[in-house]
């Protein structure tokens, strides 16, 4: 046996993640010295060029941060700007926002479960290869994804960078008749979503868990999407305007993303696991039942099981969308007036990948003087690196290529959206 005290592993370009990144692992003997997620998504400077723009522009401009979750950016931007201007959007207009957001959750989660994540569990390099072995499985995923896109196209005009969202509401709101065919699509999608949970619950999950503090929005009565109060499993609770007092972002040399921690230095995680663990009792009835059937407890702390939680969240989003359509009464007007006002506004909503924070400072004419955006992936990066350090330490007996594959798979559990890291993966394992 060759003497192998130190080794490095390297994944040059992480596949099946949104955006670009690499991973570097340095092992000294039996000790993992360093684990880094290298984010090499080129910086695009949204927060800089938003300065001087009109307060009406962030919903369209920040949507372009991420083609996978543009609605999340539009929703957090609208909430922050309306907060700055002292306007509240509620009633049917808020219901329509929630319906649009349900569409994005269905689309984004179906994309991740079937096209990005499922090949890992079933041992294929891609969903296309998997489809050659099990075409019906991938077709089910594509049907679900299309149902989500149909919701976004109906309400937003198109699925990527919807055009119908504006500060105060919408440009045009649908008639109940326009939403009726959507309900038919969603009733079929509910069957596909339930089948997805049952299928995902039957997969093999590596034994792994973490105990990071979880951060998610919570509401009094519903599973959080377009609104809520940030809360953690550690008992912290704060309003949107307290976000920057509770979360600190610091730059790291290997990444164009910033690393976020809670102010006492605690690692935390946002996203489906956090959302589910803090809001399990607020799932709508069918989603709550299927979560129990799938064996999910009060909390979920195994990142590999995130595929089951995402599937439950699809059921939740479909169920919610159906409820919102059945109770829909068209609003009196498509948007409420939002006159500009000098001030600072904060907005938090639940993007498919987790909590998304926006803040805008406006002058009296409504021009943006400061913009700040904290996306989910940059909040999760430090916790992901911590998980990977322990994950690698328990698998040092694997050879480099097996360990590399295991790490790539572990990273995809978090559905990292690197494009969103306004401020992600190659795997390198360095064994010494």
């Amino acid at each position, binding site marked *: 046996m060759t003497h192998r005290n130190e080794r490095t592993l390297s994944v040059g370009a992480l596949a099946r993640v949104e955006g670009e990144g690499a991973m570097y692992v340095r092992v000294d003997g039996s000790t993992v010295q360093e684990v880094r997620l290298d984010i090499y998504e*080129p910086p695009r400077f949204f927060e800089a*060029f938003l300065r001087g723009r009109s307060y009406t522009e962030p919903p369209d401009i920040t949507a372009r941060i991420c083609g996978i979750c543009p609605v999340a950016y539009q929703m957090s931007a609208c909430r922050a700007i309306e907060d700055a201007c002292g306007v509240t959007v509620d009633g049917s207009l808020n219901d329509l926002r929630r319906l649009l957001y349900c569409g994005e959750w269905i689309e984004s989660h179906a994309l991740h479960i079937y096209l990005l994540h499922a090949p890992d569990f079933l041992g294929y390099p891609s969903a296309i290869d998997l489809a050659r072995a099990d075409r019906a499985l991938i077709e089910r995923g594509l049907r679900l994804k299309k149902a989500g896109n149909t919701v976004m196209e109906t309400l937003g005009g198109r699925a990527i960078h919807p055009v119908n969202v504006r500060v105060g509401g919408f*440009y045009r709101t649908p008639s109940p008749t326009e939403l009726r065919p959507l309900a038919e699509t969603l009733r079929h999608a509910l069957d596909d979503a339930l089948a997805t949970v049952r299928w995902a619950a039957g997969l093999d999950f590596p034994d792994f868990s973490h105990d990071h503090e979880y951060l998610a929005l919570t509401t009094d009565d519903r599973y959080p999407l377009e609104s809520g109060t940030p809360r953690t499993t550690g008992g912290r609770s704060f309003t949107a305007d307290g976000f920057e007092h509770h979360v600190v972002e610091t*730059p790291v040399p290997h990444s164009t993303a910033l690393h976020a921690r809670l102010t006492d230095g605690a690692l935390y995680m946002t996203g489906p696991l956090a959302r589910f663990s803090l809001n399990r009792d607020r799932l709508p009835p069918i989603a709550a039942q299927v979560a129990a059937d799938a064996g999910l407890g009060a909390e979920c702390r195994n990142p590999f099981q995130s595929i089951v939680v995402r599937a439950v969240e699809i059921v939740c989003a479909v169920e919610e969308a159906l409820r919102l359509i059945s109770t829909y009464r068209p609003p009196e007007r498509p948007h409420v007036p939002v006159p500009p006002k000098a001030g600072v506004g904060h907005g938090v909503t639940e993007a498919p990948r987790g909590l998304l924070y926006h803040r805008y400072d406006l002058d009296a004419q409504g021009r943006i003087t400061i913009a700040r955006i904290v996306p989910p992936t940059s909040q999760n990066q430090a916790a992901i690196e911590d998980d990977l350090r322990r994950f690698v330490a328990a698998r040092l007996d694997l050879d480099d290529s097996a360990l590399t594959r295991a790490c790539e798979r572990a990273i995809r559990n978090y559905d990292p959206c690197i*494009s969103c890291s306004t401020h992600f993966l190659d795997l390198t394992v360095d064994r010494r």
Partner: protein
Amino acid sequence: MDATRPTLAVWKFASCDGCQLTLLDCEDELLTLAGEVEIAHFLEASDEVAPGPYDVSLVEGSITTPDDAERIRHVREVSGTLITIGACATAGGVQALRNFADVREFASLVYASPEYVATLDTSTPISAHVRVDFELQGCPIDRRQLLEVLSAFLMGRKPNISQHPVCFECKRRGNVCVMVAHGTPCLGPITHAGCGAICPAYGRGCYGCFGPSPNWSDGRPNTRGLVPWLDMTPDETERVLSTFNVAAFREEDHELRQPDTRGTDDDPPE
């Protein structure tokens, strides 16, 4: 490997992933397409990368770093046909707003330690660096147009992509003109068709996300003719032209500041 099927590669530069997502959004056609072509390099969808060269490459994103300026040359070398998809790859994207600002100041504002950030002063389209065989406009591109372009190149014919402005699609869709009927400023007359005139159908003016339409006598849209009809302040006009295709519309914006040499056919509304 099936040697008889053409190979397709998808590449990403500075962008939001939305245009390559459009390929995965072809839910009804994706598996059929995967039967017709070998998807040989598509990191967003597969961790198996077949070695090049590739028959067709789709390139998303703009060039904003020294490494990417090198990487696009490699992509050109290994690609038979290179097609750029979206506003970033064809015009530099919204991140080209840096071209008209101080990028160091931008970096110092967004990143506490800007020395960790490698970036160029400009965001430039792929065509500024290598030969491009076809450019598909849009922020994001349209799914039907993407399928048409892919089909055309796989069949060895010219893509049937209309060069008309959005107005043509708007009329065909049966929309009421938002500018004539409601006085809503609309960039439809100078914007490349392809979206299906979505914004006017939702009661809003076109905001130019497909970039300038070239189909006028001198190959450029008559922006000067449109501007008086928009009834916007110069500041508003500059902002509406300075978004997702800022570098492409900038030429138009610059022209607006020059003495009138082209004239207009109509007087603006009172």
